[in-house]
């Protein structure tokens, strides 16, 4: 939380809240209306000036949009509240390292008796920040260099560059982001990237070189993103023993697609939420803006959370998706869906459910997956209030199915196929929350409904990631 300084306007009743004088740090205190506070609340004030100290390259127009509301405040409490909101808005632009707010009475010739001056003292981020990490993965080491140029042209534009140089692969990404002045949720960004991935479950290696342009905008409570993406994909076999089905997919292809995504998120946190719901719907149309890959792809993600007694949370989630190739070319292994793994249907090996050939999993054109979870605090609550809060005990039931669809049989046949031979699993484990981004899980899983060809991981399974079923 930041600090808000305010000077008292007139002698306060002794039981009123303490405001530190100028120069002293003061914690912002939520003011509850009390009868003795009426003096402050009912006193009409007018915000006459808003000053900014510390602006360098930032342009005026984006600042003015964010702090416009401050002028509308009618009494001191509102001024403090609106200033706090303005401070939050300025911080989310990502161009200031620190924002302090100072509220004072107006001085000078044109000062009204109830006039206030609000001063924002800001420290801009440096023009260039860099980071350097080394990463060690599966038999591979790499150096990762990151560069960030915040507030490049003064209107909260941001350029980020990341370069990863490894013993096996090299990848990089360059991205330019520009929000609309006054309306940060409307923004657009352009990205250029080269990413390599190795997928041992399919004996496949994929190199993607691409660019994308996307535009995000809010509509009421939902957030929409419209994106065009062009990717040059190079597929290859990861080893000499790759199956012929995967070998047939080797080579180059070009995907040019338009996609639209909608997100409604009312959860209180994205990792281990206690309440709220999430709905993500994504559709992608490839082939009509160039390239040689043509399909319609639809997928969705739904999550509901409800807090129960004894600090436990019940969570239900449902994922699904469908890929329909257009034309007579079959779908590519790089576009299909995969199922199974510690972040998907637990108890099965990574992406090891569904159609396969000689041990290489080929993915499927339609899938669904669902999970029911009960999160409780650790038994006997060790480390309560501190470190122990990061852990949760976790009981789960996961299920899902993945298959290819032989179109022409009609939708009833498709649904029937997805309802046959359902894979499911249940178990319990411990979840560790990492900041606000990721989580680690250690579960004991019992897989059921295993079909020939699936690879299971029964017993203890470890998972790390951002998105879990």
């Amino acid at each position, binding site marked *: 939380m930041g600090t808000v300084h305010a000077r008292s306007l007139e002698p306060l009743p002794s039981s009123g809240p303490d405001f530190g004088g100028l120069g002293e740090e003061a914690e912002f205190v939520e003011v509850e209306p009390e009868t003795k506070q009426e003096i402050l609340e009912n006193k009409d004030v007018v915000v006459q000036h808003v000053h900014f100290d510390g602006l360098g390259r930032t342009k005026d127009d984006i600042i003015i949009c964010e702090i416009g509301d401050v002028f509308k405040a009618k009494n001191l409490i509102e001024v403090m509240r609106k200033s706090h909101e303005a401070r939050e808005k300025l911080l989310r632009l990502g161009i200031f390292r620190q924002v302090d707010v100072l509220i004072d009475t107006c001085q000078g010739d044109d000062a009204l008796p109830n006039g206030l001056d609000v001063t924002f003292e800001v420290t801009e981020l440096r023009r260039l920040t860099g980071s350097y990490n080394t990463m060690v993965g599966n038999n591979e080491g790499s150096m990762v260099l990151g560069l960030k140029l915040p507030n490049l042209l003064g209107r909260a534009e941001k350029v980020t560059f990341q370069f990863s140089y490894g013993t096996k692969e090299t990848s990089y990404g360059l991205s330019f982001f520009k929000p609309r002045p006054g309306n940060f949720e409307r923004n657009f960004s352009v990205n250029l990237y080269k990413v390599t991935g190795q997928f041992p479950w399919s004996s496949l290696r994929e190199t993607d070189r691409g660019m994308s342009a996307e535009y995000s905008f809010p509509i009421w409570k939902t957030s929409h993103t419209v994106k065009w993406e062009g990717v*040059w994909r190079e*597929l*290859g*076999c990861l080893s*000499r*023993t790759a199956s*012929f089905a995967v*070998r*047939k997919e*080797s*080579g*180059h*292809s*070009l995907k040019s697609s338009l996609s639209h995504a909608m997100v409604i998120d009312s959860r209180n946190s994205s990792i281990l939420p206690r309440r709220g719901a999430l709905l993500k719907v994504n559709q992608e149309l490839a082939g009509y803006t*160039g*390239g*040689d890959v043509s399909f319609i792809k639809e997928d969705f993600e739904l999550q509901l959370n409800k807090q129960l007694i004894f600090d436990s949370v019940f969570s239900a989630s449902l994922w699904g998706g469908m890929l329909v190739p257009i034309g007579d070319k079959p779908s590519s292994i790089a576009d299909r869906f995969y199922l199974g793994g510690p972040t998907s249907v637990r108890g099965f090996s990574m992406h090891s459910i569904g159609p396969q050939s000689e041990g290489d999993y080929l993915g499927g054109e339609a899938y669904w997956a669902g999970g029911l979870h009960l999160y409780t605090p650790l038994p006997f609550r060790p480390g309560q209030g501190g470190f122990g809060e990061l852990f949760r005990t976790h009981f789960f039931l996961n299920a899902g199915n993945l298959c290819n669809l032989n179109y022409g049989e009609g939708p009833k046949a498709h649904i029937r196929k997805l309802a046959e031979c359902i894979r499911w699993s249940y178990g319990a484990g411990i979840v560790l929350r990492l900041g606000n981004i990721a989580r680690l899980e250690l579960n004991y899983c019992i897989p059921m409904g295993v079909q020939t060809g699936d690879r299971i991981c029964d017993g203890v399974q470890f998972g790390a990631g951002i998105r879990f079923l």
Partner: protein
Amino acid sequence: IYLVAESKSAEPWPENATLYQQLKGEQILLSDNAASLAVQAFLQMCNLPIKVVCRANAEYMSPSGKVPFIHVGNQVISELGPIVQFVKAKGHSLSDGLGEVQKAEMKAYMELVNNMLLTAELYLQWCDEATVGEITHARYGSPYPWPLNHILAYQKQWEVKRKMKAIGWGKKTLDQLNATYVTPVSTFRPTELDALVFGHLYTILTTQLTNDELSEKVKNYSNLLAFCRRIEQHYFEDRGKGRLS
């Protein structure tokens, strides 16, 4: 480069053995066509049935990155040398009747053909600007959409030019190439060397290129022409199998 498991060599040659190469009409280049024809001729000479399948991504499917490659049972083997070895392990060989000295000579000639003829073809395709601009570039990228067709063609050209420089072929002219040709003598019983030479010569003679120097030079050797005609008649037309385009 090939994969052969000891136990597998005992299996007989399957009916569905397949050879993969690039698309015949619009994509395949002179050097790849020659290599593919050499393998086809060799297998015909050994009396082993093979089906030819054309795929635009054949070059990338191959485990060594070179065409042609054959898919026999569970195994994938690419390039003439390893294919000859693989076929030998299955009990078929064309050069069994030769003595040790002759076998060594044959190997030397095959190396020569690869170093001379194949390199000449690659040079003509990728380093002769007229040929590159009019034929190679368009053919190589033909199965791909814009801009991938240009990117892949330029990438391949750069790779071949780099290899040429590494073996000192950057500056040679066709005259110098032709001066170093050696005419192999065709034996009564054809060997893999004959298959290789036939593959290259036939392709050179029958492919329309911007620069006709190479095919004109080959036409000057009447015994080479007779040799090609004899192989074509005996192994491709007579048997009614495998048409040569």
